């Protein structure tokens, strides 16, 4: 199992390294504290959102509402959390709890998660419009300070993803509860037979997803200093792509938190890389798709070889 886990992480690491090397080759000046910060600046919220999506994929579901949820969290952060911190905190907590409730409901009624989250995407989007009908709001000062802090040796944009990867690795891969959570994705019935209340575990997985979704929204506001109701819509697809790029699979609870963070970094870097190549911005979205396809092709060849030996 350990070898398999290590194998799973190799491909994402290699893809990120290749892309990073190509970027440095094109633009050697990016190889600096400031350059790295610029390259990976927006990766922090995307990495957090990818972790959130991973929590859902871990229990064999998929979340199509994540982008709108992160947008809503960003809107709450830029308004309530700034103006009335206690109320803002309570709202964010309520959002996390409602995610947990959603997970419990999906399990209890055996609902298709894809449809429920689809419906929730309307709800989150509507609430975000309530709060901020027009782009605006202000980032709380401490959040802005936290996101722009300059740690020694490596910029925040590099340090933060490493911390995120380490914490979630401990939580999901190393801890006992993380193993059980992955077990729900692997075989929910056997987890149930072993005496675990699956409904609580699902609620926990969804609650964690809500927590990381809220953190993604807060990080995003800390970087952009304001919010609007559509600020993070593309995170839904980016986060799914990030999880898969990072070696996760849609079924069976096979996920890798470190891989997911690396997947998110790869996707962020892909956009910067193309602008260094002086490729027209028209192709940036398409190139993210192409990189996704390339990495997955590599994975196929990789896994075939693995199966052959």
């Amino acid at each position, binding site marked *: 199992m350990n070898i398999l886990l290590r194998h799973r992480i190799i491909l994402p690491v290699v893809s990120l390294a290749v892309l990073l090397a190509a970027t440095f080759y094109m633009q050697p000046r990016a190889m600096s504290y400031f350059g790295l910060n610029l390259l990976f600046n927006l990766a922090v919220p995307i990495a957090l959102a990818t972790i959130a999506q991973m929590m859902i994929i871990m229990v064999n579901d998929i979340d199509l509402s994540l982008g709108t949820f992160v947008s809503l969290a960003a809107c709450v952060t830029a308004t309530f959390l700034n103006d009335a911190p206690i109320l803002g905190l309570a709202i964010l907590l309520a959002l996390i709890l409602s995610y947990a409730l959603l997970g419990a409901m999906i399990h209890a009624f055996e609902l*298709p998660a894809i449809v429920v989250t*689809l419906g929730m995407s*309307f*709800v989150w989007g*509507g609430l975000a419009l309530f709060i901020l*009908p027009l782009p605006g709001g202000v980032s709380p000062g401490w959040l802005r300070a936290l996101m722009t802090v300059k740690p020694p040796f490596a910029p925040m944009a590099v340090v933060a993803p490493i911390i995120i990867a380490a914490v979630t690795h401990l939580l999901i891969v190393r801890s006992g509860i993380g193993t059980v959570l992955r077990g729900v994705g692997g075989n929910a019935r056997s987890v149930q037979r072993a005496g675990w209340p699956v409904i609580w575990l699902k609620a926990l997985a969804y609650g964690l997803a809500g927590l990381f979704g809220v953190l993604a929204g807060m990080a995003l506001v800390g970087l952009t200093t304001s919010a609007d109701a559509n600020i993070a819509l593309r995170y839904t697809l980016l986060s799914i*792509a990030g999880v898969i790029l990072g070696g996760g699979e*849609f079924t069976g609870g096979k996920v890798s938190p470190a891989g997911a963070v690396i997947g998110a970094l790869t996707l962020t870097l892909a956009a910067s890389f193309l602008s260094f190549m002086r490729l027209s911005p*028209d192709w940036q979205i398409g190139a993210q798709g192409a990189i996704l396809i390339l990495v997955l092709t590599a994975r196929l060849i990789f896994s075939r070889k693995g199966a052959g030996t």
Partner: protein
Amino acid sequence: MTILAKPWLWSWLAAAAAFALILGLTGGRGAGELAYAALSFGAFAAIVGLGQMLVITLGPGNVDLSIPATMTLAATLALKAMGGEPGTAFAGLAIALGVGAAAGIANYALIFLLRLPPIIATLAASLVYQSLAIWSNRGLRIKPPEGLADFATGRFLGMPNVAWVGLALAIAVWVLLERAVAGRWLLATGQNLRAARLAGVPVELVRACTYVAVAMFAALTGYLLASFSGGAALNMGAEYLLMSIAVVVIGGSSIAGGNSNVPGVWGAALFMFLVVSMLNSYGAGAGARNVLTGAIIIAIVIAASTRRART
């Protein structure tokens, strides 16, 4: 088997209820116009919904996320080729359908050759289509040829032309699913892929044809929608991703695949339009409208699941 047990009935009842609620507010005025608008806009949702339904019927995990990108790409290329010249409508249609077929083949190639889960394959492909559309569009807004625009906004026997197209496609899909061998193959594949393969169903052919069909349906919708609204826009397909999945589920098809429900898709398409106009006419803002739409979708899914549990 009473009529009450038909799963498509509920979406039609819901549509009728929304219709009645709007008329209750206006005191019965404007019923004709409302029905006409619902049929026009419902037709677009219904056509993409039919395609999505075929894919979802293929079984768990099968869903086409590239519908909006395919719609936009097909519409952009078709309008560009027609260039607003009269008499080019059929050439444009051929181009749109050709783009759809190519997108469908590309999607299936990714799924089959790279063994990607359909969600990821269509997602990655849609990013590429989106770029192609942006690149070929370049902010231009080419008007559709006049005859085509007249057709798309016109009516025949009191019903919008686009609704006739949607109706004809719905009947074709229904006949295919209920009366043709190919439809039985599709249902069998969706119910149990392995059993279908062992029974001699050419499952990969069925899957390939389904992914091509959904892309062609999306391309046709894009072509009609661009002609209807006077030009292609890059975000024209955006709302149809959620819409296509929502109408399939509200229409009573099983999200787990293996059963499909053609009349329900039309009922749900009308319902989705009427719900929005109902909330509009009751003065709900954009925020409230979205929250309520989402709440209604989830309520319907929960209702459908408890009904299923009882039977």
